[in-house]
């Protein structure tokens, strides 16, 4: 039954896309980190990462000036840490599907709580198949947007993961992240312009 509702939701939102073709592209960067991480029974210290996310989103549903958007993004994480006195560096790519609600606070400030679905293992890993335990993870995010001018926004975001996922899956993509970035919106229907 839930699957059917989910399907109806996406059909509905697909029609909304035609009616509301608002698009956004964005670029964020920032830092992420873990606490108390263990890998194969050894403690990992100083587990952190530099994060770069880049992608776009579509407005799929809007009521007055509030709207829901879904998107797709690449996320590159340059993670590092120390395990058994060995320093490591690792670069990882994740595919992210952000889903967020955007609420205007003032003419220039907006707040955007949401979720990020993303893969938990490498895309080229033979185990990257539906049915793999811990294939996906769901991060919570809260962001603020500030309109600079001409649909250019400055953004800040906080992301965290509260799932009970084994440490090994946070090793190269830490669970807490702080990001800043820029965003460009495109409107076909000018009446919705901020």
């Amino acid at each position: 039954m839930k699957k059917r509702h989910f399907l109806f939701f996406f059909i509905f939102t697909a029609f909304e896309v035609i009616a509301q073709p608002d698009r956004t592209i964005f670029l964020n960067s920032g830092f992420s980190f873990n606490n108390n991480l263990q890998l194969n029974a050894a403690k990992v210290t100083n587990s952190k990462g530099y994060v770069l996310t880049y992608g776009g989103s579509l407005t799929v549903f809007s009521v007055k000036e509030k709207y829901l958007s879904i998107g797709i993004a690449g996320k590159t994480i340059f993670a590092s840490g120390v395990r058994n006195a060995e320093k490591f560096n690792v670069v990882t790519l994740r595919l992210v599907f952000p889903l967020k609600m955007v609420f205007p606070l003032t003419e220039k400030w907006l707040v955007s709580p949401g979720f990020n679905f993303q893969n938990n293992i490498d895309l080229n890993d033979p185990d990257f198949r539906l049915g793999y335990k811990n294939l996906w993870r769901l991060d919570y995010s809260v962001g603020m947007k500030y309109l600079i001018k001409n649909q250019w926004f400055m953004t800040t975001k906080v992301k965290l993961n509260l799932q009970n996922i084994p440490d090994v899956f946070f090793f190269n993509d830490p669970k807490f992240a702080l990001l800043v970035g820029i965003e460009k919106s495109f409107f076909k229907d000018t009446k919705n312009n901020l």
Partner: protein
Amino acid sequence: MRKLLFFIILTLAFSCSKFYENYELLDITEIETELPIINIGVNCDEFNEMTSQVDEEIEIKGQFSMFRNGVLVIENEKVELEVKGGFSTRFSLKTLGVKFENKYDNSDRSLINPNKILPHHNLDKIKAIRLRNSGNDFVKTMIKDLSLTQLAINAELNLDLTYGEPVLVYINNEFHGLLNLRTEANSNGMAGLNGVKKDAVTLAKITTHKLIKKDGDFDRIDAFLEAINVENLKYLKDEIDIDNFIDYIIFQTYISNTDWPHNNARFYAIGQEKFRFVLFDLDGALRLRLSKTPLNIIEDKRFPNILTDLFFIFYAEENFKNAFWNRYNSILESRIISYNNFKSIVDANIAQIELEIQLQIGKHQAPSTIIEWNIELDKMLTLFQYREQVVYELVE
């Protein structure tokens, strides 16, 4: 905008994790290894042709020598080599089948020396071995198949399986790779385990696309397949070692081997004795469908196969059903297959190869780094722990 898209596409193309820690390639002559070392003398051109044209099934001749603790225990035994395996032949380090010209006398355990041998098995005469790259686990832990098989051995289930240990392999005195020396799961292997000649073995293998009659009495195999086809339970009961069949199904479903039962399955008989199933190539376990029930694992709707059919013919009968679940429960209650037992085996195997895996990384970049190896080991253990919880909840 176009540049941004190009950047995204470029990054997606390089979607794997990359580790930039540099580990030096240790000089093999300076390693104080506790692993056995095998050196195979071959004609270089023939060897290169064999390993580069894996679909041609080329066999070449060689001279097999082996060292244990620095002592030469096997010297220049004549062997035939052949690349073995399916998907895993794509890796830079191939699995090699090694067939001795004469059966090797392993009564002193010089060739293969496992910690434990099941009471009904014999490793005194070895016709052939396999130097295995751990199959699909090659770029991951290198020890999944080995460790899961050791778990089955330690559990003393009614199984026929392979025996193995990690070894360093040289070709013409040059380091070739870290491989797992393993007894064979074919007719030679089963003949050896049972202490009989290969002629006495009837064996068939189930692969993804077909059933292959390999050796022995093909009429008997045909009759067996026909009995499955017409669901002749009475005939099948007379033809199958039920206790072995139950233990075999339990172990494969416990570890959620999803490269099975449509593949990596073999059954064999010695003379007119009953058919038994062979446990081997477990690197497809602990990956997918870990939340599924044992029956879901056997069902395997992707690829119709005779093993699934066979099981459900038996399972329709109440006596078999009770025997199956009673055995499953008794194994779970005994905790002979458990995370703790598996972890202790894995830890021992890690300790055995943690120095030598650096050579593998240096030569084959598989896994890429020590950290990546540890990630894969951690995942394997984590998934075993999860599967254990699932099986206990589902079965009880």
